[in-house]
Every structure is written in structure tokens, then in C-alpha cells.
């Protein structure tokens, strides 16, 4: 959404659609036809910049809307520019809201958008929301406004209960997808599942794994048996193993399965039945859930793992032995999410069993170190890098790391696009040499030329940021915490990374000089987040004054003395200051 200009070209009438422009070598219809093959919103934005008639042709033919920051534009502007939208992706809160760093009721409410969509896009089919507040009222409006509505995806959203979902289930006759991920509202209630009408059978994707409430299994079973096209089913923890077996019998063609609880006293006959059910899932590509899985029941899965490309064990703390035994059956794994209970030994098994691995995420079992478990270290990561040369996405939570290991890791796997390393102790140096981790991240920036996303951690001086600014030419997202020595660190990044879009910083000694050094750059970025840094209200005020197309929002903590800016959120916008900002958000 780069050009919100609403002027219509002199030769076309907006209400009738574009007509032939005499100076064009080919008619608009051809242009539109060609453009209908252009799907990526980035490409479409580029197309719209060529000339006015291209802009118009593009806006008439765009059917998928992507808005990365719901406050960068307003529903009115969107509705004016794009008359024919069928699919909307909207993202709201800054990412740090996932970690409780934003007060409640900060905003990103989808309702005003839905009100506009109900008016302007009656044929809306798809809505994908991330980090937005979605109330029951909104879900009801959604359910009743779009007769052809097909797909709802809610990722990290909050604000709804089963009542909203009930409205959706009862009214959307053509619903194919209901995908709720990482829901913040836990006790949503489970009655919604029973609200699908008896003749409703169009569901292809159903994911309610993160909703913890009890649902009626009978209704679920009936629903699954009716929906012959179901290919993705992710149930919640309340579904037991033998219940899962019955579901699998009805849906052997699933490509993605999220199990329920994987711990249950099974009779030998039940065990066999479950094993058979899994073996019959010949199309399974992705597997998740597996709550409380242990050595007794993991073997039940083996028959389903041959074609598995994505194994998500982030809810199943396994020990290295069980984990290694499971991996033997998954030779085609490309994406793997585990908990660090598997330890370095488990990661060695990854290195030896998963040669095709492209993505690895290791989550901490004990993030607050209450139980002092070792978790994983640099040797596990090294082992994976040796055995999995195609690795390009990593999210790694560990308690210790060394520069040497990271340097070797990126030598083994130079194709990293996403390198997110979280050494969980803030400001922790290389545990062997006690030096800062500057060289590690320098190596990542230098060696991984395709790097798009980087999260740094450990003890870092400005040197690491110099490296990043100098070498990370494709970097789009950078997350920084407890790092840097002076303003120069942040400045290096702002001056250096040409493709930077999102910068999120917390607890770093960067102040007004650093903040203001990037003022022109922020208009080329989606957003900047700085919290617990050395930025003051004065500095933010200067930024706001000098850059009117940026929203500079500050949230100060209670009892703060008013001169420091505790949380700063800066983003480009064509919609002006927020009209729905709660009291604690100060727009400068």
C-alpha cells in the first residue's frame, strides 16, 4: 500500500471501471488479464507505481489484500482504492505483545475493518488475522455479512469466546477453513463445535489445538465423518488417544494432524487399533500436538512418519532416547520443532537422521530457569549443522554458546535466511572465552548472504552491529535485546541494512541520537520498537515533529518520571494518528 492516491485517471470513470486509454499500446483489458497472474502483493505494489493507468488496472484486479500493520492505513482508504477484494490478511500488534510487553486493550481491533468490509466487500471469502483483537461481536458480524465466506485464520488473536465461534459455525455454510493458532484467550468455551449444522460438510481445515476447553467428542466425530474433504485436523488436548483413533478412521486422507493428549492407559486392543489408524494415514505430511507423549506410546506413530515433512514436538518434552528412536522413522523431515529436553544428544540424532532438514526450532522447557536443566548448548547446534547442510531456518534457545561454534555452523550452513539465536541469560558472553558474541553474529552476517531475519542475544558490543550493518544486505527483520554499547550500534544498523523493515529493540543503551539517526529510514520500514532504552520523550517529540508521516507512540510505565520514553513504537502510516488509542498510548 504505497500509494494511497485516490485520483482517478482523467480518461476512466471509476464507477464503470477502466476504459480504453488511447495512448496505451494495448487495451486495459489485456493489462488486467496479465495482472491477474500477478499475485504477490509486493509485485502488485511495484506494478501500481509504473503509471496511473497501471495503478488503476492493478487496483481493479487485486483480490488479495495484505496489510502488515493495521494502523498504517485506514479501512476507508483501503475501501476507496480496492473495489474487489476477496481475501484479507491483517496484522496488528507489534510482535513483543506476544511476550506480555504491551498492556491489555492496546488496540488492533478488527471491528472497524469488518464494518467497512461488510459494506464494500460482500464477496469476501478469506480473513487472516495476526495479533489482532477479535470480539464476539466482530465474529458475528463476519458470520452474517459474507454469504460466501470460506476461511478464517486467527493467529495470536484474543478477545473472542465460543459465542463468536458459534455464530461462525452456524452461519457460514461454505466454511472451508477454521484455523486458530496460538490463541491468547484460553477458556474460550467448547460449545461452538456443536454449532455446525447437521448438513454442513465443507470443512477442509480445522485447527482448535490452542483452545483448551472441552468439546463434545460426538459432535466432533460426526463433523469429521461428514467432511470428506478434511485434510487438516488439529484437535486440542482434551481429545484422548482412543478418541483420536476414531477420528482417524473417518479421515485417513489427512495431510496435517494435530493429536490430542498422547498419554492414556490403552488396552492391547486399543493400542493395536491406534497403531493401525496411524499406519493408514498414508498422506501425513505434518504432525503436531502429542501432549504428554512418552516412550510407551510414541511407537504408535511410526507407521505414519514415512512421508512426514514437518514434525512439531513443541508440546511434547521428550528425552533424547525416545526422540532419537522416533527420528529414525522420519527420514524426510524438513521442519522440526522440539523442546530442549532432548538435549545435545537428541540434536546429534537430528544431525544423523534428518539429512533433508531445512528448519529447526528448539524451545526451552524451563525458560525461567526454575529447575536448572541444561537444555541444549553449542554442541547440539553444531551437530545439526554438520548433518543438515540444507538448514536455513533456525530458532534456538540455549543457555550457552560460543563464537567458534557459530562460525562453524554458518560455514556448514551458509544458506540461512532466518537465524534466531536466543542465549537465555541476558548479556552472556562466549562461555569458553568470555568474549562478547560479536564474532558469532558477524560471521552470520558475513557468511549468510541470504539472511532475512536475525535475532541476536548474548553479550554484544557495537561491533556486532557494525558487522550487521555492513554485511547483512538482505536483512529485513532484526530483534535485539540487552545488547550494544552505545548509540553507534543502532546507527550502524540503520545506516547499513538497506532492506530493513522491522526493527525491535529492548533493554539496550540506545538513545535519542540513535533514534533520530534513522528518521528517514523509518518511512521505508514497517515499524520500529524500542523499549527500556535510553530514549526520552524529547527525542520522540523531535522525531514526531520532523517526520509527520510516522506515528510515534509512547507508552510510559506507571510511576515513570515522564522524561524517559519507556516503550516507543514508530511506524509509517497514511492514516494519521490512531483514533482508537487508549489513554496510556501517547501519540506525539
Amino acid at each position: 500500500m504505497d500509494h494511497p492516491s485516490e485520483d482517478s485517471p482523467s480518461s476512466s470513470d471509476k464507477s464503470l471501471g477502466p476504459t480504453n486509454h488511447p495512448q496505451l499500446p494495448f487495451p486495459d483489458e489485456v493489462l488486467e488479464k496479465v495482472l491477474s497472474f500477478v499475485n504477490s502483493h509486493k509485485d502488485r505494489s511495484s506494478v501500481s507505481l509504473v503509471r496511473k493507468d497501471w495503478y488503476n488496472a492493478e487496483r481493479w484486479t487485486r483480490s488479495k489484500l495484505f496489510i502488515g500493520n493495521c494502523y498504517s492505513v485506514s479501512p476507508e482508504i483501503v475501501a476507496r482504492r480496492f473495489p474487489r477484494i476477496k481475501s484479507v490478511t491483517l496484522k496488528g500488534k507489534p510482535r513483543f505483545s506476544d511476550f506480555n510487553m504491551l498492556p491489555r486493550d492496546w488496540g488492533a481491533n478488527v471491528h472497524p475493518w469488518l464494518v467497512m468490509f461488510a459494506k464494500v466487500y460482500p464477496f469476501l471469502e478469506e480473513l487472516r488475522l495476526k495479533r489482532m483483537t477479535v470480539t464476539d461481536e466482530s465474529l458475528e458480524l463476519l458470520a452474517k455479512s459474507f454469504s460466501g465466506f470460506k476461511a478464517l485464520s486467527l493467529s495470536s488473536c484474543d478477545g473472542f469466546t465460543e459465542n463468536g465461534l458459534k455464530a461462525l459455525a452456524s452461519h457460514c455454510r461454505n466454511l472451508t477453513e477454521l484455523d486458530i493458532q496460538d490463541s491468547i484467550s484460553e477458556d474460550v468455551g467448547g460449545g461452538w463445535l456443536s454449532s455446525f449444522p447437521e448438513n454442513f460438510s465443507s470443512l477442509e481445515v480445522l485447527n482448535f489445538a490452542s483452545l483448551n476447553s472441552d468439546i463434545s467428542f460426538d459432535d466432533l466425530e460426526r463433523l469429521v465423518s461428514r467432511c470428506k474433504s478434511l485434510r487438516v485436523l488439529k484437535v486440542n488436548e482434551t481429545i484422548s488417544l482412543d478418541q483420536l483413533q476414531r477420528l482417524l478412521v473417518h479421515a485417513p486422507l489427512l495431510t496435517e494432524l494435530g493429536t490430542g493428549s498422547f498419554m492414556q492407559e490403552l488396552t492391547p486392543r486399543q493400542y493395536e487399533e491406534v497403531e493401525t489408524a496411524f499406519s493408514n494415514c498414508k498422506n501425513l505430511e505434518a504432525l503436531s500436538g502429542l501432549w504428554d507423549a512418552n516412550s510407551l506410546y510414541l511407537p504408535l506413530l511410526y507407521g505414519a512418519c514415512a512421508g512426514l515433512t514437518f514434525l512439531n514436538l513443541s508440546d511434547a518434552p521428550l528425552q533424547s532416547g525416545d526422540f532419537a528412536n522416533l527420528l529414525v522413522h522420519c527420514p524426510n523431515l524438513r521442519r522440526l520443532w522440539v523442546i530442549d529436553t532432548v538435549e545435545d544428544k537428541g540434536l546429534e540424532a537430528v544431525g544423523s537422521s534428518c539429512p533433508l532438514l531445512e528448519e529447526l526450532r528448539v524451545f526451552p522447557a524451563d525458560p525461567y530457569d526454575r529447575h536448572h536443566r541444561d537444555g541444549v548448548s553449542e554442541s547440539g547446534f553444531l551437530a545439526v549443522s554438520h548433518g543438515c547442510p540444507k538448514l536455513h531456518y533456525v530458532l534456538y534457545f540455549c543457555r550457552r554458546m560460543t563464537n567458534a561454534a557459530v562460525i562453524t555452523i554458518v560455514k556448514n550452513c551458509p544458506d540461512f535466511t532466518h537465524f534466531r539465536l536466543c542465549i537465555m541469560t541476558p548479556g552472556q558472553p562466549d562461555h569458553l572465552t568470555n568474549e562478547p558474541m560479536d564474532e558469532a553474529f558477524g560471521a552470520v552476517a558475513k557468511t549468510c548472504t541470504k539472511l532475512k531475519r536475525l535475532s541476536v542475544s548474548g553479550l554484544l558490543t557495537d561491533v556486532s552491529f557494525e558487522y550487521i550493518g555492513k554485511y547483512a544486505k538482505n536483512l529485513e527483520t532484526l530483534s535485539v535485546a540487552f545488547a550494544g554499547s552505545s548509540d553507534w550500534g543502532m546507527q550502524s544498523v540503520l545506516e547499513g541494512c538497506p532492506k530493513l523493515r522491522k526493527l525491535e529493540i529492548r533493554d539496550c543503551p540506545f538513545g535519542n541520537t540513535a533514534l533520530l539517526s534513522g528518521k528517514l529510514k523509518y518511512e521505508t520500514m514497517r515499524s520500529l520498537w524500542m523499549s527500556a532504552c535510553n530514549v526520552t520523550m524529547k527525542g520522540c517529540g523531535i522525531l514526531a515533529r520532523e517526520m509527520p508521516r510516522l506515528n510515534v507512540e509512547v507508552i510510559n510505565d506507571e510511576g515513570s518520571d515522564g522524561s524517559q520514553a519507556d516503550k516507543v513504537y514508530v511506524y509509517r502510516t497514511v492514516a494519521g494518528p490512531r483514533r482508537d488509542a487508549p489513554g496510556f498510548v501517547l501519540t506525539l
Partner: protein
Amino acid sequence: MLSAQLGVEGQSQCNVSLMASSASADCITQNGSSLKERNYLGLSDCSSVDSSAVSCGADTEIKSNLNLKATELTLGLPGSQSPHHQELSFTALLDEKQLFPLIPSKDAQKSVVSGNKRGFADTVDGFSDSKSAMLGEGKNWMFNGVGVMLTNKPCGTQPLVKTEATTLKECGNNVNNGGSNTNNAPAAKAQVVGWPPVRSFRKNSLAATSKNNDEVDGKPGPTALFVKVSMDGAPYLRKVDLRTYSTYQELSSGLEKMFSCFTLGQCGPAGAQTREMMSESKLRDLLHGSEYVLTYEDKDGDWMLVGDVPWQMFIASCKRLKIMKGSDAIGLAPRAVEKSKNRN
């Protein structure tokens, strides 16, 4: 409610001076239920943090069934009725031991309290030697740098203690393991808001080892209760969600880990300036004599010592926390009890 929380105690009480080196380490021992005043620092009660004349605050009518022992600033869980343990702590409290050893000291085994710190041993029923050893080690390690003195409401069921004992033991082990790198020792896994960046919904159940209320994933609960925590001398504030803790002990250890990095000058941007390796002896020198007290500002704007009142009451009234030097915290204590008494 206070009495229920704090247990019944009519024995000799001892008020502990927070300043080890202070000459005013008066210990006013009284018998039975006649003890009314709790003279932490040998000073009068005053709401400001400025030091003032030494005098004994005249607390009135503290109920005899208040377990003032329990509200004394020690580490362990009140609730034990064992006189033996009480006396143990009494003696130990007077004992001017090394306050902040980096390595768990062997002589902390029996009497887990050194200096002004009360150990678990003092107040937990059925306390075993081995447990006290673990706790002793761990406790001393944990007080590395930040002598946060808290009390706990008596929730000392055995399993709870055991878990914390294990935690402390592992703390101790951690120290021993991190020999080559002093930065490992405090291992400041700070319970800072939002760190580590793990999503709150993620439920990695450590079913075997976690307590019921162990919020492994740090969910904020019905309403998150963020308060600022500042420390004298630290370059920036932190914030914690009080709802992620359920006892003073948890709060204490969380804060300790969070701020020990400042004391050592190792972690964070501040650490960049003082990043040179600290030898153990250097550390000990630094920590010797430095003593911190955890205080909070309540809804009335008064600064109180943390730990005087039951946990729930505390989180209901705490607006923000401050880790002060002991010398600045003189005279805070008595008010807390009196205030809460007045509220009751």
C-alpha cells in the same frame, strides 16, 4: 488473616538488624507475647527512606499470635513451630558470618542462616540435615551480591519446600559447574517481563517436576500485575509481573537473578563497561559489606520492606519495587505490620 498466615508464635523473638556492620544491630529479645515492637534496624518507624535517629518504634498491640518470627527477614518458609529451629535462627542471626560467599560455604550446612538471612532450615518442619545442606549451599549462592531479605507466608508444605530445595541445590551445583566462567555463577536468567521471548500460551509441561503453580511459561494470569523494579546503582529499570510468582521466595530468586548481573557488572549494556573478568576474591570483596534490601512502594505511597505481610496482601498493595542499599532502608519495617494491623 495475618495470624493465620503467619502462624502462632509466642517464643522469643529476635529483631534483626539489616546492617551487618551497624552498631545498632540491636536485638531486642522479649519473652512471650509481650513483644510488640519489631526493631529491624534499631530505628524508629518512618515512611521516608532517609535514615533517622535510632530509636525503637513503638508498635502497639501486635497480636500475640502474630508470628513475628515469620515476618523477620529471612529466607525460609515460616510456619514451622519448632522451637529448635527458631533458636537456631536466633543464634545464627546474631552470627556475623560472611554474607555473600560466591561459592557455597560448607559451614552453612547446619545453620543455614548467615548474617541476617534466615534459612529454610529455620522454619520448616521435619527438616533434614541433607536438605539443610542443600539449602544452605544454595541459599548462600543465591545471595551472591544481592542480599534480598524476604519473608514468606507459610505455605511450607513439604513438596513445595522440596522443590525449592532442589532448586537451590541446583543453584549450588550450577556455581560449581561454572568454574571457568564466573559469569555462569549468577546465571542471571532474569524473570524480566517478556524474557526469554517464549510465547505465553506455550505449555511445555514439565509434568514430572513442576509444582502446581509453577508457571513455566509465564502466563500473565487473569490480569498481569507489572511493577517496576529499580535497584540503586543499576543503569535501568526492570519490570516484573507479580502474578508469575506465588511466594516471596520466588520473587526473591527472580529478582536476584535479574539484578545480580548488575552487581557483578557482567551482563547487559552496563556490563560492557565493566566486562573484565572478576576473580572470585574480587567479587567477594565487592560484595562484602554491600547489602541490599527489597522494598516496595504501596498504594499509600509509603515505602515498606517486602515480606512483612502475606503474599496476597503484598501484591494487592505493591505499586513498585526497589532494591535499596540497606542503609537507605532504615526504619521501614515497623510500619508495614502496623499498617496491616490497622487495616485488619
